[in-house]
């Protein structure tokens, strides 16, 4: 067998094995998207109800509580980044990281210090490569998040939110995650979780409206204190679920195009290999014919 032919055959085999892997990953992701999507859909009403209740209170009352009031001066802001544990998901992790960098830039230009909380091994790798130290890191289980992790993250950021900026606490909390729009579109989204941003669905009171009297049981402080961690956890959990669904969709798409590329390579190399085989045969025939001619001439 000719040397050229052997090289082509090797390349075809290598593309075939790669394709087996990417195809398998594509199928796995495709089967997991459905479930991840269902989890997002199931958890969304809760998150919406909590956020709605909190923003209604913030809009209609003027009770001073950390949850509802803007701090006079923001010295430090926290960014929680939701990336993935594994790569091979296209631009999934890099696009949230890019979005987070832009946000950090903006915050710094406003004279705020930035603290990072990272979720996912990829985010951690990005930071350690640049020798930056995040506040806290959570890794593992980004593709199937559990509520316990959300609670843990919530507790950690709440704890630093309630601490003074001079003691290493933060005054603002932003989250950056991939929002699952549909199978082909996942957009990185930045949300300020605390202090609260008013969400849709709660009508802004007009200037002339008198604020309705809100009734609290047992009292305002206790209710808001109880509401604060619930609110944060639900926002974090929702972001984690959205991010997981996006990760699967993103991986499925990346692996599909990788499989398609492998197909294309295999086709191209097969053509080249056939060509090489053909020319090898042609050469052998012309050698034989030439040899036979030389023999018959010599007689």
């Amino acid at each position, binding site marked *: 067998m000719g040397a050229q032919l052997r090289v082509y055959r090797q390349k075809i085999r290598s593309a075939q094995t790669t394709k087996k892997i990417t195809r398998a990953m594509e199928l796995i992701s495709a089967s997991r998207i459905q479930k991840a999507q269902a989890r997002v859909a199931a958890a969304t009403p809760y998150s919406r109800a909590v956020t709605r209740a909190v923003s209604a209170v913030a809009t209609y009352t003027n009770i001073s509580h950390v949850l509802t009031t803007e701090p006079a001066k923001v010295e430090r802001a926290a960014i929680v980044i939701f990336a993935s544990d594994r790569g091979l998901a296209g631009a999934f992790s890099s696009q949230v990281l890019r979005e987070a960098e832009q946000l950090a830039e903006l915050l710094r230009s406003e004279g705020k210090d930035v603290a990072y909380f990272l979720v996912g091994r990829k985010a951690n790798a990005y930071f350690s490569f640049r020798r930056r130290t995040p506040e806290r890191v959570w890794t593992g289980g980004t593709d199937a998040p559990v509520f316990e992790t959300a609670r843990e993250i919530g507790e950690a950021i709440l704890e630093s939110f309630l601490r003074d900026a001079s003691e290493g606490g933060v005054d603002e909390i932003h989250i950056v995650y991939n929002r699952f729009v549909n199978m082909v579109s996942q957009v990185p989204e930045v949300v300020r979780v605390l202090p609260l941003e008013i969400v849709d669905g709660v009508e802004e009171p007009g200037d002339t409206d008198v604020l309705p009297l809100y009734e609290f049981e*047992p009292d305002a402080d206790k*209710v808001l204190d109880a509401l604060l961690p619930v609110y944060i956890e639900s926002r974090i959990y929702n972001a984690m679920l959205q991010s997981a669904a996006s990760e699967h969709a993103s991986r499925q798409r990346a692996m599909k195009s990788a499989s398609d590329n492998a197909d294309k390579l295999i086709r191209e190399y097969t053509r080249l290999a056939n060509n090489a085989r053909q020319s090898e045969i042609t050469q052998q025939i012309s050698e034989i014919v030439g040899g036979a001619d030389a023999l018959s001439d010599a007689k």
Partner: protein
Amino acid sequence: MAAAGLRVSVVSADKDVWSGEASMVVAKTVEGEIGILPGHEPMLAILASGNVRVTTADGSKITANAEGGFLSVENNNVSVVASAAEIVE
């Protein structure tokens, strides 16, 4: 501002338990039982574990078991939000 009815939703952390129109909601807060009728003033209360009874617009009754959550009322929207909740037959 007594409108036609209440829009009620009972939500738990992982699903939408029940939502629809209702004429009355009775829940148990940490201070005691409370009944909510259309036109109730805005309110936010911490729920004690116990049953939430909803009388729907057509008069039938639904009982849900809510644990560790809160009750919010504004503009005739009632949300019962609990980390765990389910319908009791």
